């Protein structure tokens, strides 16, 4: 069990990503709300400015003459004062009598254009200003009325609104990250469970598997691969174990012979000839041991990919004929005939190829029927050069066929013929095929046995 915030914790990563996602989403929502709020506020300010403006406009328009002006001006001033500094009124006119001052000005251009809203910053105060030209009437000259509203009165509301937004944003992010972490932990609970099961697997308990029922889709593939890997490990472990016992058995026979013979020899005085005979017999057994050990080392190097190969593009029929030439005398002794048919050219290590074919042909002579033809058939099929040794003989049982290439496997368990055959010949053929990135095969039907290997063209 690791700490929730230790390095590389998936829960932590997910919580962080949730927080980031929450930040982005809330920011977008809050910004949208903020802009909506701002535009609503602006609209509200404009409406208020317009309504207040139209009130002033009415007062000025209805009774506007130079006689009534001082009264109107007082009335206007009252209205301005009532607002408590929220609104300001400025009246520009060519006649100073009609002028009314305020702490802002309107540009000359605004006057000539005599209409429209503007937004001004005066001494840190933001003013929304509406200006309008009122044409001359009676003895009153043309006037430009400008009404300004100090937006500071709205900004107070605005501040609390912004503050609430920020607080909600932060709370939202914190809530999302914590929930995210909890969700991730809950989602990953199955992983913890699998990890517990995996920790229970050890060499004494190799058949154990991770539970594959009711798994979430995402973990199914992982568990299947993991169980597959365990199956392969178990198979190879079991093969290794039976290989070890086969090796021990195979080595025990010559060792037993040597120990027994030597003990018998030493228990009584012997003549020189008798001793020489025992030494020679021991040497034969030792040669046999050396042979087995060398073949096992070859297989072990092949397993580890340590065989040094130098590929040459050669005619397989030519190499097969050289091998046949070597084994010719054995065929003659058994009255077998040998024929090489077909050809293919591919990259091989000639000595390994000959070794594989020697083993196959030697098997064909030893296990096949005498006085019968043996054929080496070389064909090209599906991108492979296929080399098949065909001989006549007793059919091999179907369940034995796939095991023929296993180390120390023998069709009959009585270890007949074990003097010349220690059960590694076909395993070496398989190793050689695999060194060439090829495969082996075996078939047996109606007294015809076909065993061989194929190498990519």
């Amino acid at each position: 069990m690791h700490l929730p915030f230790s390095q590389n914790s998936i829960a932590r990563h997910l919580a962080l990503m949730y927080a980031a996602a929450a930040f982005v989403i809330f920011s977008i929502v809050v910004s949208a709300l903020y802009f909506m709020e701002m535009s609503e506020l602006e609209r509200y300010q404009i409406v208020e400015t317009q309504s207040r403006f139209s009130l002033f406009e009415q007062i000025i328009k209805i009774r506007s003459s130079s006689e009534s002006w001082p009264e109107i001006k007082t009335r206007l001033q009252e209205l301005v004062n009532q607002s408590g500094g929220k609104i300001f009124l400025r009246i520009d006119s060519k006649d100073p009598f009609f002028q009314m001052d305020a702490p802002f000005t309107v540009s000359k251009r605004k006057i000539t254009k005599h209409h429209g809203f503007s937004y001004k910053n005066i001494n840190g105060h933001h003013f929304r200003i509406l200006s309008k030209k009122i044409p001359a009437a009676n003895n009153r000259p043309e006037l430009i009325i400008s009404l300004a509203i100090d937006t500071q009165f709205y900004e107070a509301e605005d501040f609390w609104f912004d503050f609430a937004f920020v607080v909600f944003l932060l709370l939202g992010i914190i809530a999302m990250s914590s929930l995210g972490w909890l969700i991730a932990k809950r989602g990953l609970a199955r992983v913890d469970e699998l990890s517990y099961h995996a920790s229970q697997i050890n060499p004494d308990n190799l058949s154990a598997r991770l539970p594959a029922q009711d798994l979430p889709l995402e973990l199914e593939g992982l568990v299947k691969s993991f169980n597959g890997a365990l199956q392969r490990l178990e198979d190879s472990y079991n093969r290794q174990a039976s290989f070890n016992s086969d090796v021990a058995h195979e080595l025990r026979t010559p060792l037993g012979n040597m120990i027994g013979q030597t003990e018998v020899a030493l228990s009584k005085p012997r003549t020189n000839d008798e001793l020489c005979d025992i030494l020679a017999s021991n040497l034969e057994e030792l040669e046999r041991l050396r042979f087995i050990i060398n073949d096992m080392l070859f297989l072990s190097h092949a397993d580890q990919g340590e065989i040094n190969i130098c590929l040459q593009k050669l005619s397989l029929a030519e190499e097969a004929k050289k091998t046949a030439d070597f084994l010719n005398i054995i065929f003659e002794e058994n009255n077998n005939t040998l024929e090489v048919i077909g050809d293919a050219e591919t990259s091989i290590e000639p000595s390994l190829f000959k070794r594989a074919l020697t083993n196959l042909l030697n098997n064909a002579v030893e296990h096949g029927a005498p006085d019968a033809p043996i054929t080496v058939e070389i064909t090209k099929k599906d991108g492979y050069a296929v080399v098949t040794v065909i001989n006549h003989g007793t059919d091999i049982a179907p369940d034995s066929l796939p095991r023929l290439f296993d180390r120390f496997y023998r069709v009959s368990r009585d270890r007949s013929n074990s003097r010349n055959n220690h059960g590694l010949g076909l395993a070496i053929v398989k190793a050689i095929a695999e060194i060439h990135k090829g495969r082996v095969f075996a078939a047996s039907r109606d007294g015809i046995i076909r065993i061989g290997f194929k190498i990519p063209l």
Partner: protein
Amino acid sequence: MKILVIEDELKTREYLKQGLSEQGYVVDTAADGIDGLHLAANIGYDVIILDIMLPGMDGISLLKSLRPSVKTPVIMLTAKDALNSRLEAFNCGADDYLIKPFSFLELLARLQVITQRGRSKEETNIYIGDLHIDLLARRVTRGKRRIDLTAKEFALLEVLARRRAQIVSKTVITELVWDICFDTNTNVVEATIKRLRAKLDQDGEPKLLHTIRGMGYVLELRS
């Protein structure tokens, strides 16, 4: 012919010394790398047999400090036949190598190749008792009797005749006659020997082709 054997395993060292001495070589031995290097650098040997795993100084380092000033041929003995140590041995200037467990006959064969290297001693006629082999005409006679041999039988006889009075192992025969350099589990050599012997040694004639059980074959006239 002087040979230095540098080998730490006592039994191996002893049997190599005895076996090589009996073959007429003068043998010195060293049990570790430091003594071995001292002897190899100061005494002129014809061949050095050098184990790779040695106390004091391993065979590869020993060979490195020997070359290039000492050019004595070196046969390396190695228990690990992994590709790397083989390549390493050759790169450091070894002339040949043998993988343990090796057969003593194999070692003798390699020694012969190395010590005869450079001496062109091509025989054209070989006489053993009343057997005459004309290597150029590829003709074999025994007394007045002409012997007809197949190509492989002749090649086998030639291999044995060139090494007359020496034991030649099956491995060496397979390599020299059929150019097959891997261990085979076949009776090819036995069968070919049987046929050659039938043609060579007929009833009433002294036997020339002898089987040394467990080791190999010898072609010689025994008194």
